[in-house]
């Protein structure tokens, strides 16, 4: 899985591409935890190009969300495909994560959570 980072204001966006599975999950978890340890309080995961999520991927998101929350931050999800969204719903992730249909909505919500002023 490819992960590329960008900034939108104070919000870090990780754009994911490919499969969030046994191979991709540890890398994603590591990247999110690095960002949280470096002081990021809101990380938005762009799921638009993610075709597949397995339980390893869900675990990586859950563990890094817990770490983020413990540090006063949050992990947000943007633009999951319908099948990926269904997986999140089955896993009960809608109640523990901010999941948004669009990147703009996720970034706006992330900005509000960090108390950042929109540029």
């Amino acid at each position, binding site marked *: 899985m490819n992960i590329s980072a960008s900034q939108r204001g104070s919000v870090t966006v990780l754009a994911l591409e490919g499969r969030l599975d046994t191979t991709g999950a540890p890398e994603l978890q590591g990247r999110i935890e690095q960002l949280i340890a470096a002081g990021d309080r809101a990380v938005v995961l762009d799921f638009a190009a993610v075709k*597949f999520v397995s*339980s390893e991927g869900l675990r990586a998101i859950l563990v890094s969300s*817990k770490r983020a929350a413990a540090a006063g931050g949050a992990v947000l999800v943007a633009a999951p495909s319908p099948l990926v969204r269904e997986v999140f719903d089955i896993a009960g992730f809608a*109640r523990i994560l901010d999941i948004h249909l669009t990147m703009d909505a996720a970034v706006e919500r992330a900005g509000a959570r960090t108390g950042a002023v929109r540029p």
Partner: protein
Amino acid sequence: MTERLALRITNALSAIPPATEQATAWLEDRGAPASAVFLVELIVEELVSNCVKFAYADGDTHVIDLEVILSDAILTVMVVDDGLPFDPLAAPQPDTSLNLEERSIGGLGLHLLRMLSDEITYERQGDKNCLVVTKRF
């Protein structure tokens, strides 16, 4: 009309991507819906990686037999391994109503398979674990 694909998958995580590619290409060639393809990918990923991690105590190479059957609008996937006896249906289900702090990280793989399929059955046959997943589309 019934069509079948039989795959033999080595008990290694590296064996998952080629098996998945073969199974998904076979399904897509037969016009299977995207949700059927997703389910088969998930079955391969979850069950094979479970086998790799937990099923064998001897460090040897083992083979997991996977059969994908398409019959009209019914998808059946059979997974047979010769690992330690393990009934995945007996594993506790995760409590998905808990909040973030309370959630534990286990049990999600089988939960996903249960929720995305119509039926899952398990049988221990001799020295083999046999799991059958069925979904009507």
